[in-house]
């Protein structure tokens, strides 16, 4: 039987939720999936030059996120014997995390309280609130 899967929404800055989820996963014998979302909208407006460079930038953004943010943590946690994988995707954070959770058939989501400034979150809503509102599975908000 496959073990339970925990999703961690990792913003690349706040290690808190990752470490907490790792502890819980170890206790439960679950595996961990680290999801990092690169902010992107299919409806944003770009200049012709940005269109030309989009593919290149996408590649660079992916490489950077992989080598700097996700891979080191995955390697570190793997070294402790945990079953971990990393996912980097483009899109709007909350829906993407939910998509991954659905795909992986995850049973729990871990997310940090908030990364951005208070004002921005008040206007646009935060990823945390978005997940708490829309997640069909238990979501742990790590302070």
């Amino acid at each position: 039987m496959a073990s339970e899967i925990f999703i961690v929404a990792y913003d690349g800055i706040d290690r808190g939720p990752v470490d907490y989820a790792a502890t819980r996963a170890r206790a439960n014998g679950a595996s961990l999936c680290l999801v990092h979302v690169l902010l992107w909208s299919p409806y944003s407006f770009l200049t012709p030059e940005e269109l030309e460079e989009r593919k290149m930038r996408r590649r660079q953004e992916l490489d950077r996120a992989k080598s700097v943010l996700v891979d080191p943590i995955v390697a570190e946690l793997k070294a402790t014997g945990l079953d971990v994988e990393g996912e980097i995707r483009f899109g709007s954070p909350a829906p993407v995390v939910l998509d991954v959770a659905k795909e992986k058939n995850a049973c729990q989501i871990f997310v940090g309280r908030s990364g951005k400034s208070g004002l921005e979150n008040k206007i646009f809503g935060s990823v945390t609130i978005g997940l708490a509102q829309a997640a069909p599975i238990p979501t742990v908000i790590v302070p």
Partner: protein
Amino acid sequence: MRLPGRSLLPSVLILLSAAPALAQEAEDQSNTASVDAMVSGVVGPVTKPFVDFIFAEIPGIDLPWIVLWLITAAAIFTVYFGFVQFRMVPHAIQLVRGHYTSPDAAGEVTHFQALATAVSGTVGLGNIAGVAVAVSVGGPGATFWMILSGLLGMASKFTECTLGVKYRTEYEDGRVSGGPMHYLKKGMAEIGHSAFGKFLAACFAIFAVLASWGGGNMFQANQAHSQLVVITGGDASFLADRGWITGLVMAVVVFLVIVGGIKSIARVTEKLVPFMGILYLVAALIVIIANFDQIGAAFAEIFEGAFTGLGVAGGLIGALIQGLRRATFSNEAGIGSAAIAHSAVQTKHPVTEGFVSMLEPFIDTVIICTATALVITISGVLQQDPATGLYVWDEAAGQIATANNLSGVELTSAAFGTRITWFPYVLALAVVLFAFSTMISWSYYGVKAWCFLFGDNYTSELIYKLLFCLFVVLGAAVSLGAVLDFSDASLFAMGIFNIIGLYFLMPIVKREMTTYMAKLKGGEIPKYPKSAAVSGSAA
């Protein structure tokens, strides 16, 4: 690229700041308008033979051959592709909405983005000022021909944008570049006309560079300046006859973006332009609805004028020429420019971008240009003889008589002002933004063409960009007539070489279309649920 740009900044700013001093000197010598007259005097004789050639009339029917060339091509593509512009619009809208975008492509250029960028390159002063010229010179009947040209032009756009994607070049580093230079060279080589293809590509590139300085730049700067003069007090304005001031300010901002690499300015503009477009349309609707009792009469005039002229000097032909000329100037169908912007899209089937690109002339001409034309017709700014219902022709100005001899953007502004008195101020902002976004797009088209001709390196690019900035100043300083003729001529000249290539390559587009349609019917083109399209996998 950014760093050398920055280090160059101070020296060029010093150069630019010397320009007003020179201009001031010139002004002191013979008071007002001397700079404008001087520039017109230098530019006019150089451009005249070229302009005369492009607009040479076919003997016997008084119709410039270039207009016939463009409209014939559009009509041929329309028939050849089985009225694709009417059949495939619903599918194009689905493509734009991302229904067929694979989640794996998240982070790549979407159909929506390619379309949005292309539209903000085409929606410019052509839609606001160009249409005013069409309606005041050709009468309201010009609107009919404009709409017809927009609808037919959708087929030209379809052809060139499909080819733009099919023959684009994808560089090792991930950059994607396409457009007529690429498909004329590669596509023609593929069908065994390598040398001829190279020749067409080079000719296209030469005129693309010229057009990027003309229609994509000088005309925009010129009309943006005119509107600024209108809102700052007309003839009494400080800016009146000082086009170089507006030009210089715009040139500095353009310089900061295209040479200095300050993308935030461009990004802000790109975001504001769509809202300005919507605001413009809403204002047009308000003016039209406020005069709802005249809507019927306006349409009657548009149809009647299309075939009789309603007292306009050129009659039917006058309306036709103006309508087709200004529509083409605005939507650039058959010209090849938009294929450059469209070609960066992420798609497995080039023809999908062809479908999407058809929405561009529709938005640009059938919607926005028509809105402008209706507002001008309905507002009553064009003087009519109450007894006969015919328009009063102003021989000296060469257009329908208007109060205070208005033309171009000033006329559009006055038309909106009849109902919404403060709108000219909003229009000024819209005009400056439209002008600016069109300039940014065209500077890109131009630099691609320039590098095709002179090599893809930093120095060559920089020379082009500095010249581009210089033309912003010139454009704002010279009179509308000189700018308009040169802008049109260079833009239309691109269409000569592009369309020759399109005729050769259209069977390839047809094959692409047939294959895709068969797959679409057979359910081989996968559809994706909405949420996945926004959040695709990439790792």
